[in-house]
């Protein structure tokens, strides 16, 4: 049991030494860690770790080498990752077949396995250490502290990485002093709207109530965002500690995690972390002899996007339909079960221990004037380095996409970056040098949102993208208020019409009208921001809308009713692979033999074609194109 400050200090000192000895090799062992995030696990990192244990035992070195799964490395497109301490060698795209070679060559032979190192695409240079890879160079880990380093299922490693030092300091301060520290850090809510977290805490502190609650919003629903999942998977104790500090500050003794049911690994690791903290006495009654008691509870979502909205989330915990409540009263006054409640996002709470441990000043030394600290982005879509990146606020979109993201694959042209999920908008090339912060993104017609950043290239149709988001919103609208329930449906109908080549110019005006109505009259943020994808694509890509309406053409060849697959008969070598794989049986051989070829070319019967795209992916000669 760690029930006094002295015991905590002793423990931290011992665990910190353990961890440092492990990372530096002072314990005389080698340590293999593998990424255990959702992406790498699905690429078999767990099986690879088992294989390591097997081969190490077979080579008789099992007692000199440990094998552990850790949290997300962030560089998902290069996973699964294997890292070896103390040399800090990083292998990427590791397969089960590579295990023996790594053990024999590196662990036993002391030579780096060259072919498994990351190759910097720009220079062709092989890089053996994580910190030397361009993807990581501009990053700065605050919220992701410990992710990819510690074993998330072992509280001792977290203690060696600074866990509970923030809480320790908080408990030595008055509750108001803790709130002042958070206010001074300038941290704003990482869940989307960017409301100053310290002010939220102050409201709840000022509210009278015999019982108060802290709720952690882990209902990360924005498609394309997975930072909260990775934090919960990589360092769940940081979020628990952040919640405890918040609880101490506002005077709450119970905290609720509300996590998506879609995140089973995160839920499991959170459960383990809560259990381990309780066993050590770091959660429960009279924590560290301070008189402060706190308990954590876990509630799961059930697949409703709107529950990411804070009042809908509260209704869901209360066992009701997840519909938002009118505000005011704000949750800080009347929240969970009618008691004063603060609701903070996972990433926000993960930053709190850092603020208390390192001081508000250090946190605020990074970032822009009004957006302090760092932000985690889930970089996805048409970008080489798909993954999770944490950068200082104020980093430009260009740095994010090109320096860290490594640019667009296949030499395609950048078209837009979509930030903020279904509530956000698309930003085009002209905005690439804009610094990213809460206010600047809003000023440019998008928003930070939870940090999803999806890159789109010339092959993405922006009308189709707008339709995609509207389909999402229409489906997820809870139906409580009329503007959102009916407005989104009408907007979706119009967008569908346009993508089917049946749109009119009047439709564009109607879209703009509806957008305004839904934005200004909806009850909650879901409806208020629902039209952002439409307004931003309409302002930056109006020409694409017009091409669909007037020319009946989809410039990106995405909208199926306006596109057809055609075989270039000069390029076709007549191998017949496309015809073999065609589910509609619409590809047949012609009698034309192109000069230089031996077999007659094929052609597609446009009337029968279902436009599934199977042929284009089988053709080795790039002879099939979309027109």
């Amino acid at each position, binding site marked *: 049991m760690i029930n006094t400050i002295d015991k905590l200090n002793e423990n931290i000192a011992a665990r910190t030494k353990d961890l440092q000895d492990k990372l530096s090799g002072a314990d005389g062992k080698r340590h293999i860690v593998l990424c255990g995030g959702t*992406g790498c696990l699905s690429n078999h990192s767990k099986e690879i770790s088992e294989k390591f244990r097997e081969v190490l035992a077979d080579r008789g070195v099992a007692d000199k080498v440990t094998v552990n799964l850790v949290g997300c490395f962030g560089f998902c497109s290069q996973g699964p990752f294997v890292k070896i301490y103390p040399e800090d060698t990083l292998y990427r795209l590791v397969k089960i077949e590579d295990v023996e070679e790594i053990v024999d060559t590196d662990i036993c032979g002391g030579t780096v396995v060259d072919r498994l190192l990351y190759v910097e695409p720009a220079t062709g240079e092989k890089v053996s250490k994580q910190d030397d890879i361009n993807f990581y160079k501009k990053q700065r880990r605050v919220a992701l502290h410990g992710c990819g380093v510690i074993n998330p299922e072992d509280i001792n490693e977290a203690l060696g990485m600074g866990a509970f030092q923030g809480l320790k300091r908080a408990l030595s301060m008055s509750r108001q002093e803790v709130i002042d520290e958070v206010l001074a850090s300038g941290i704003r809510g990482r869940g989307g709207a960017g409301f100053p977290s310290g002010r939220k805490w102050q409201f709840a502190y000022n509210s009278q109530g015999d019982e108060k609650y802290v709720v952690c919003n882990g209902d990360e629903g924005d*498609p394309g965002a997975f930072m909260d999942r990775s934090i919960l998977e990589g360092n769940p104790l940081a979020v628990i500690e952040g919640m405890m500090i918040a609880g101490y500050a506002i005077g709450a003794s119970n905290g609720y995690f509300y996590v998506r*049911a879609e995140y089973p690994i995160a839920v499991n690791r959170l459960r383990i972390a809560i259990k381990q903290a309780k066993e050590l006495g770091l959660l429960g009654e009279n924590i560290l002899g301070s008189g402060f008691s706190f308990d954590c509870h876990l509630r*799961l979502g059930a697949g409703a996007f709107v529950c990411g909205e804070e009042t809908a989330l509260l209704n869901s915990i209360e066992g009701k339909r997840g519909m938002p409540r009118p505000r005011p009263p704000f949750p800080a006054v009347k929240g969970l079960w009618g008691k004063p409640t603060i609701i903070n996002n996972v990433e926000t709470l993960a930053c709190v221990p850092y603020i208390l441990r390192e001081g508000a000043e250090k946190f605020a030394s990074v970032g822009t004037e009004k957006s302090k600290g760092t932000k985690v982005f*889930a970089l996805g879509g048409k970008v080489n380095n798909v993954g999770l990146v944490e950068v200082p606020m104020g980093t430009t979109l260009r740095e994010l996409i090109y320096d860290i993201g490594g640019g667009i694959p296949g030499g395609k042209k950048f078209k837009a970056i979509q930030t903020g999920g279904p509530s956000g908008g698309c930003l085009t090339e002209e905005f690439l040098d804009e610094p990213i912060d809460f206010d600047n993104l809003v000023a440019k017609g998008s928003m930070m949102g939870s940090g999803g950043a999806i890159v789109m290239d010339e092959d993405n149709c922006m009308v189709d993208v707008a339709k995609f988001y509207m389909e999402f919103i229409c489906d997820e609208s809870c139906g409580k208020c009329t503007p959102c329930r009916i407005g989104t449906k009408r907007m979706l109908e119009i967008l569908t019409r346009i993508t089917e080549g049946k749109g009119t110019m009047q439709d564009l005006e109607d879209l703009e009208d509806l957008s305004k109505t839904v934005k200004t009259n909806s009850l909650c943020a879901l409806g208020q921001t629902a039209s952002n994808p439409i307004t931003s694509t309409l302002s930056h890509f109006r020409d694409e809308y017009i091409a669909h309406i007037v020319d009946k053409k989809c410039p990106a060849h995405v909208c199926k009713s306006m596109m057809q697959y055609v075989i270039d008969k000069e390029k076709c070598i007549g191998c017949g692979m496309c015809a073999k794989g065609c589910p509609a049986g619409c590809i047949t051989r012609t009698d034309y033999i192109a000069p230089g070829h031996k077999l007659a070319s094929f052609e597609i019967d446009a009337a029968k074609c279902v436009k599934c795209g199977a042929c284009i992916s089988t053709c080795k000669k790039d002879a099939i194109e979309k027109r």
Partner: protein
Amino acid sequence: MGGLKAEAVAQIKEICGRYKDENTPLMMILSDIQNEYGYIPLEVQEIVSQETGISVAEIYGVVTFYSFFSLTPKGKYVIGCCLGTACYVKGAQNVIDKFSEILKIKPGETTADGMFTLDALRCIGACGIAPAVTINGTVYPKMSAGKVPEVVAHYVKEGATA
């Protein structure tokens, strides 16, 4: 409620009993029933109502609100195609269309033999390996329409032998 077997009734009651100490545990009860019993038909809701004192109308309202809760049984294999943005821009629509075509069911439906359910999922947060498909918890990374027949065939075979 005559349709339910005694053991099913006991199972539902046991699940309701797990959360006696929790404030407003309806969501937790329903999640467990969905996971362990497979679906939440009206007969089951009636038992939950008796055990918790919450009206059936309210329970029905909650069951139908959340997409994870189902009134009808799901297939032996639940195929979830992620249609989050990252997956969508990389062709997830083609993947789900292909499943639809092969299994001859629309998203949200279950095959007549009770073998497969096809679900369109919101982002499952596996954007690094888009387009992602999950089948009973196993995640298939970087899917394409071309890989779909092979995956379906695997489960058809497994389902026939099991």
